[in-house]
């Protein structure tokens, strides 16, 4: 085989993706256009019904909001950790990397379960609150948006940190030293040197976290309960409980578009930020 013919090696994966990825997604779009559960009338009625319902828009807004909160929380806690990584010696760098990757490889269901133990009525947080006398009765943390955001912050933290650590480990330390040597304070060095240089990693992390948090069905369902409704719950209910596949497809495509727009928005903010920094 010549070098020119090597591209054919991509064919098996391309064909597998075409047959088992692209065609099913096409089918998803096709089914969403049908108006009835038996998939016989092609009139787009489910789209009209779904998007005409004010409740739908509340769910879409809540889903996007959940993604934004989780992105903000993971960035706020993850970025300082990445800064510490940047300044640490090789040994501590290995420890931090290990601590980030262990939860990444631990099942999402296990991590979700951990937060039930922590946030429950008799959970770790409530015991601490009662012991410190901060509240007279156990706080309700499960089945609240705050509780869910706290849990998702931990669950999504590793995928925020990996791209950040990747960028940080490639950063030229001389630039930070030069900034300090020229008399800039630590804050100034952070905002004028480190942050602009690490922006691509931060943007990549935000995109991954947003996409993951908005679709994290098990975490949303188990910690949020069925009082908090997000798009994944509607997809699950309509497809596997009610068996209304057209409506489930409409909800799935709505989620897909919402996530796509959110990710594109984060990328756009990142580009503007870079333009400002230079």
């Amino acid at each position, binding site marked *: 085989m010549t070098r020119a013919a090597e591209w054919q090696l991509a064919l098996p994966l*391309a064909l597998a*993706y075409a047959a088992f990825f692209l065609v099913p997604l096409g089918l998803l779009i096709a089914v969403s256009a049908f108006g009835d559960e038996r998939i016989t009338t092609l009139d787009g009625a489910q789209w009209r019904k779904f998007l005409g319902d004010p409740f739908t828009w509340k769910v879409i807004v809540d889903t996007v909001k959940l993604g934004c909160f989780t992105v903000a929380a993971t960035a706020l806690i993850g970025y300082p950790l990445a800064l510490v990584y940047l300044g640490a010696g090789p040994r501590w760098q290995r420890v931090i990397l290990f601590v980030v990757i*262990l939860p990444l490889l631990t099942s999402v269901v296990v991590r979700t379960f951990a937060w039930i133990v922590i946030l429950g009525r008799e959970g770790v947080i409530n015991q601490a609150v009662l012991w410190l006398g901060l509240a007279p009765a156990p706080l309700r943390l499960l089945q609240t948006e705050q509780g869910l955001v706290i849990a998702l912050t931990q669950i999504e933290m590793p995928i925020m940190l*990996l791209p950040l650590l990747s960028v940080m480990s490639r950063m030229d330390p001389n630039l930070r030293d030069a900034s300090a040597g020229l008399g800039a304070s630590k804050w100034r060095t952070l905002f004028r040197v480190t942050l602009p240089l690490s922006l691509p990693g931060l943007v990549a992390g935000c995109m991954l976290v947003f996409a993951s948090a908005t679709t994290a069905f098990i975490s949303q369902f188990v910690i949020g309960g069925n009082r908090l409704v997000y798009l994944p719950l509607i997809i699950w209910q309509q497809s596997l409980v009610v068996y209304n596949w057209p409506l489930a497809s409409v909800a799935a495509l709505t989620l897909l578009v919402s996530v796509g727009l959110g990710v594109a928005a984060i990328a756009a903010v990142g580009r503007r930020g870079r333009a400002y920094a230079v």
Partner: protein
Amino acid sequence: MLARRASDLAYSVVIGLLAGLGLLVLVGPVVIVLLTSFTLGRSIKFPPSGLSLQWYRLLFDRVSSSQIHRAALNSVEVALVAMAAATVLATLASVALARRSGRWVRALDTFFMSPMILPMLAFGLAALMYFTFLGFRPSLPLIMIGHTVVVAPFVLRTTSASMSQLDPALLESSASLGAGWLYTFRRVTLPVIAPGIAAGAFLAFVASLDNVPVSLFLAGPRSDMLPIRMWGMMESMLDVRVAAVSGVLIATVLVLMLVMERVVGLTRRLRD
């Protein structure tokens, strides 16, 4: 000068506190689950009311936990097949796309990586409808196909990273010395990219083992998967065996991770 020192001190305190919180948040839940699984009590509570191995004993009981064992075996079987299929397909694809540029190559690469960012739940539903229309009922082979699609990007990423470190001059000299393509691939390319492939295969295995959104739609009554079963056990809050299963999973991942770190430098590969 004093203001400057105060500002630098404030920087260290703020960053240090937030980073410490980050570390605590990352490690704390894992530790809490591990400790909870050794509880002597009958409910999930932290700190545990005394230590025992009772829930592990119940978990490994062949009769009372047979459903969990079945689900765990299914999950491992699916993960092994999906890992093997994804590794072969994605390694070939990354060899094909390596050191090429142009619009088509970039488009193909984006297409191959798209399952990473696309809501997997949407793909799970799409796959369920697709296979149903083709006349199949939910079963293990369907889950294997679905998982192969969503874990292939992991192998593609790590293998492509290794391919970019391969010196083209090596390939040229091998070819100019009369070696055929396959011989060059086996003796030159493969040894260089093998650690990347191994790291990707490991990630693919873990991702498949952990997958919920695809299994949720493609698993039937006879093809129960471990994460789905654990979800069911969590819904009925009393089952402390979830903690024991979690303990086993954490220990397994920890051991595998340490082995992979030794063999292929896993964490470094994940970072780069």
